[in-house]
């Protein structure tokens, strides 16, 4: 119970900090590369980036406890690599590796470690890699699963900067031939891709709430034909639909958190990311229809959220990917297992 209070307190603090510091202007500065990292220093000082670390002296907060933290980040268009760093530090602590200062970036691609101790493989898109002091991934060596880390400074030659929809610092990196800075066997609750999928689902759920909120506010103030457009049933119905999608995304993401905390192989990540990606697609579609022309302008804040929804929809697997994964598991398990696994 006391742990839950720590988590609630932190989410509350983070909410206040981001509400005060993040605006369309600061997001624009971040996106065009002129933003400064003062906010990150502030976050570091708060200690919030360490709370998911496990081990003797660590806070060791679980997924359910931290769900709101991630959702708060989503609500504020995640102007920092905090989500990645929270998860990254947890992975490092689980593998018993030292935790470097500064933000982390995560690789969810298939990478292997050859007999010469070199990494083989590439990742198409790594959010925040240009900012990261270290980049973490999982590498396979035979039957072994290893967490590896490479220093941010070491990858610049192999990195291609990408322009993503999110417009956060992003790169594609070919790790082939690199020697990890550190590596250790890891028994994580799930793959990085699965965990990152749950993180993205939580961010989507937070951002969906925000977008629905903005749309309702706009529908209640914008007048056409002598009344607020929110009085028109055609719009009410679309917004109700958006609210349902946002609610489903929240439920699915929180469900996945519980499954991760129980540390059993689970379909939580697939359920969460499928549901959240569908929500990202539908909520942004509806919001843009409600906002009309003003919503597609650069000066309106809506796009800071909808562009991230579009980005997060495809990050760590989109709805097609995860429904395919889940369906393949269900089919392979067979008919008799369907209901028992749904109620497990």
């Amino acid at each position: 119970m006391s742990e839950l209070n720590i988590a609630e307190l932190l989410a509350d603090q983070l909410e206040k900090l981001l509400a005060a510091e993040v605006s369309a202007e600061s997001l624009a500065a971040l996106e065009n590369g002129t933003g400064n990292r003062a906010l990150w220093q502030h976050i570091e000082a708060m200690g919030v980036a360490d709370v998911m670390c496990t081990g003797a002296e660590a806070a060791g907060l679980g997924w359910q406890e931290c769900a709101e933290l991630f959702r708060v980040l989503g609500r504020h268009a995640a102007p920092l690599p905090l989500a990645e760093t929270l998860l990254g530090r947890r992975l490092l602590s689980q593998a018993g590796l030292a935790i470097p200062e500064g933000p982390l970036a995560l690789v969810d691609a298939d990478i292997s470690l050859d007999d010469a101790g070199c990494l083989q493989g590439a990742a198409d898109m790594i959010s925040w890699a240009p900012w990261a002091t270290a980049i973490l991934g999982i590498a396979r060596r035979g039957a072994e699963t290893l967490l590896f880390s490479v220093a941010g400074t070491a990858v610049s030659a192999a990195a291609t900067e990408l322009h993503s929809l999110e417009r956060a610092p992003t790169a594609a990196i070919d790790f082939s031939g690199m020697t990890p800075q550190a590596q250790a066997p890891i028994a994580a609750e799930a793959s990085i891709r699965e965990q990152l999928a749950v993180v993205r689902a939580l961010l989507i759920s937070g951002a969906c709430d925000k977008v629905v909120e903005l749309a309702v506010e706009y529908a209640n103030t914008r007048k056409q034909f002598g009344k607020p457009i929110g009085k028109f049933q055609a719009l009410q119905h679309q917004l109700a639909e958006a609210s349902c999608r946002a609610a489903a995304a929240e439920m699915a993401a929180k469900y996945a958190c519980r499954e991760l905390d129980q540390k059993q192989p689970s379909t939580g990540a697939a359920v969460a990311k499928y549901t959240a990606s569908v929500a990202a697609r539908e909520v942004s579609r509806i919001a843009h229809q409600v906002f009309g022309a003003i919503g597609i302008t650069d000066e309106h804040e809506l796009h800071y959220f909808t562009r991230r929804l579009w980005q997060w929809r495809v990050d760590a697997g989109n709805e097609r990917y995860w429904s395919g994964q889940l369906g393949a598991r269900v089919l392979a398990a067979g008919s008799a297992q369907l209901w028992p696994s749904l109620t497990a």
Partner: protein
Amino acid sequence: MTAAYRFSPYAVPPQAEALRAEVREFVQAEASHWSGWQIAHSWTGFDRQLSRKLGERGWIGMTWPKRYGGHERSAMERYVVLEELLAAGAPVGAHWVADRQSGPLILRLGSEAQKAKYLPAICRGEAAFCIGLSEPDAGSDLASLRSKAERVEGGWRLNGRKIWTTYAQDCDVMIGLFRTGFSEAHGKHKGLSQFLIDLQTPGIEINPIRDLTGESHFNEIVFDDVLLGEDALMGVENDGWAQANAELAFERSGPDRYLSSFPLLPLALAQLGQAVDDPSIARDIGALVAELTVLRQMSLSIQNQLESGATPLQEAAITKLLGTGLEQRMPGLIADIVEAQPLRRRGDKLSEALAYLIQVEPSFSLRGGTNEIMKMIIARGMGL
């Protein structure tokens, strides 16, 4: 502004889980003689014999006080029983309405005599209830209903017509909503009262309405100077609208709001086999299972809130809208991916179930409040 709804994960407690195996075993034994056509009826399948068996096992009126024939078990234990029955497509229609709505209403608002008369019979699976709400000119807009009950010497006289009442021809008792006050004086939603009506009472004429599947679940019921005693009034006179509405969160969020088409899915998986290498089939199945998982979590979360005394109407409307959407999509989607013709071919359960569900799924978003009404409730809750 914070969201107008609250959903948090809730796990079925171990004590309730303990019951699951027992129910599953019972259901499996019974299921062998249910046809595909039958299981596709879900909670609209009417089988008095099954209801009596369930009554014997103590699976009707599970949460009600023992002195009225109930079993004083937890709501979650009841939830486990319901979802196991529904997942298998058990024909639970003969006690469904009584167990879900009418019994709880009597328990909450009924007189001692009403409780003693009806509740034990419901628990035994021997009293089938139906609900008399809709009228020819009062569908989604229920408050505009016109059938009336007038006070007479020693009781009430009912006149009017009810329509779309499910299984009235097979039921014993109706809880009907009638106008008892003038709408001008009381407002459109006031002046309505609920009555417990024995369907054998003289003056009641039940005319089955044949539906598009060829069956007659629906009825039109004509009340022609039907005389009822004083004790037929349920709860408070003129307060029937609020009484009927208070039950809606229960009615809209149960497993019956997303499992109606579920029995198709295991049948389809069995037909497809375990070695399917078509990624598009995997995606369709995966999407259905993901949605089922989320809806079950939403339904459980609401159940938990109801337990703690909240009235999660907003959450219930969201769950019903999403749940009936899934129920409606499932038959068409499954018909697309399996090699089964929707036919009433004896023995082919998947074909039979598809044949029934493809015809009735349009009604899923009508019963218990249409999609449009749900969206209106949600929009209002959002502050529009």
